[in-house]
């Protein structure tokens, strides 16, 4: 494999382990870009890769694509399964289609962009980074979000941002139900500029008008003897 050529890996008839081994080998050989053909919705592609590399999956990927990675630049031309980019530390993942549940779950850094809809629990328990959903997302997105920024251009399902910490959620459509202990407010000018910078390069934008959801913080600090505070927050 030449260091100056795009490395092409055809997945047909192969298992995930050997495909990932080829991806790692191409990175070690210094390939500037890697094209994976016919990924066939296989799970766990490009997982745990800690070196920077540019990988394009031509088709659909399965669960956990790009999970636990650090510095990859991934593009998926089709759809993605559950837990896209879960636990990733830096880099970017752009999906032209849609993604399943738990997109960007527990991620620590980097950016995940899904141009279509995402399933439930997007950016759940996030610890950093940014998730951008071009369409709508399902129930409990942003649940217990600690520090991830979640941008949903379309609608958000029930319990949006429930029990979150210091993350910030934005929704460009309708929120079915903001979760417990949340504040719903309008973004300021700086935030609108930030939202434009995150969405417009991908041809995305709010379905209607941006709404910001953050934690009300009532669940953070309370004395266990103040049961009424806890009861009110929930």
């Amino acid at each position, binding site marked *: 494999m030449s260091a100056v050529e795009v490395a092409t890996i055809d997945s047909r008839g192969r298992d995930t382990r050997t495909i990932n081994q080829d991806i790692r080998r191409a990175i070690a050989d210094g390939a500037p870009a890697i094209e994976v053909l016919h990924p066939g919705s296989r799970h766990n592609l490009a997982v745990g890769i800690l070196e920077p590399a540019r990988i394009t999956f031509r088709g659909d990927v399965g669960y956990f694509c790009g999970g636990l990675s650090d510095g990859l630049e991934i593009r998926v031309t089709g759809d993605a399964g559950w837990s896209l980019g879960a636990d990733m530390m830096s880099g970017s993942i752009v999906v032209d289609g849609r993604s399943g549940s738990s997109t960007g779950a527990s991620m620590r850094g980097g950016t995940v962009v899904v141009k279509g809809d995402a399933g439930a629990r997007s950016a759940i328990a996030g610890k950093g980074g940014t998730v951008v959903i071009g369409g709508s997302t*399902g129930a409990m997105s942003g649940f217990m979000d600690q520090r991830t920024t979640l941008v949903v251009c379309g609608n958000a399902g029930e319990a949006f941002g429930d029990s979150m910490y210091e993350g910030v959620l934005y929704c460009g459509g309708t929120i079915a139900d903001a979760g417990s202990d949340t504040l719903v407010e309008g973004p300021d000018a700086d935030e609108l500029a930030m939202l434009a910078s995150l969405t417009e390069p991908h041809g995305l934008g709010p379905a209607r008008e941006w709404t910001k959801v953050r934690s009300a913080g009532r669940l953070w600090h309370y004395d266990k003897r103040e049961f009424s505070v806890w009861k009110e927050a929930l």
Partner: protein
Amino acid sequence: MCGIAGFLAKSNDVDVAAGLTAMLDALRGRGPDSTGVSLYGAPHPGNALASVWCGEARSSDPVDEVLAAMRAHGEVLSADERSGYLRVALQLPDLEPNTLGLVADAVEAAAPGVRVFSIGRSLELVKHTSAAPVLAETFGLLGKPYTHAVGHARMATESIVDVNHSHPFWARPFADVTVVHNGHVTNYHKNRRLYEMRGHRFQTGNDTEFVAVYLADKLAHGVSLDDAVRASIDELDGSFTYLVSTAEGFGVARDRFSTKPCLIAETDSWVAVVSEGIALAEAFGDDVDFKVTELAGGEARAWSHGHGGEPERMAA
């Protein structure tokens, strides 16, 4: 885990069993313990078809005992024994639940250890602790003119790994209704007691068996398949994506929190409902042009095979 799949043909040239088998084989990682399928629509003599599991019979000649018990209630037109299963074509006075319940009870009383897995107009149910391709080959399922089918790849979590506890579950004694399920229904103990007070009897401790009876009971009371699967979203607690099938078609429902996956793929020739996209890619190729959507949390849909013509989508 566990994986479920449903496949419905829009035209007569689609091999339903082949499509379902390929999807279930691709879901083996979600369910390596057993595989089961309910297939509908292949012609047979008489007005009923029974699938009887004799693999754990305690007598030396259960087939004679089973057939003698059946002859007390109707005419036995054909009987095919294969790998522990007895597939019996019957002419019964009717297919009312009371009649089917009597037949099933009589068979199991006459042949200890034998289990009647299904009776229906057009239902053929087989399940085993083997992989999907083995199941299809063992029972000669491929190439038959089925209209639709549902199947299950099981990872046992709450009951033992055996044939009896594998899916699909027949909604005994309701003709043709079967369910495959991924998840755990948490209010089934309470609901099951309510149904037992109304006279229903359950064969296993599996929550899916309750879901089957619950849905069949609604259908028997005139509720449409569409309305039945929609109502289940509110009336069942827990995590679930299930497929319920009748002689006319199948329906699917997913709990509000989307805890179990569900994709729907459609072409001009077929409709597939399945747990994971990898099953679509392995069964039909990743370059086949089909539209894939994810069933949303709290959504339920149903399709009818339309008597061999265009399937009718009964709910959106």
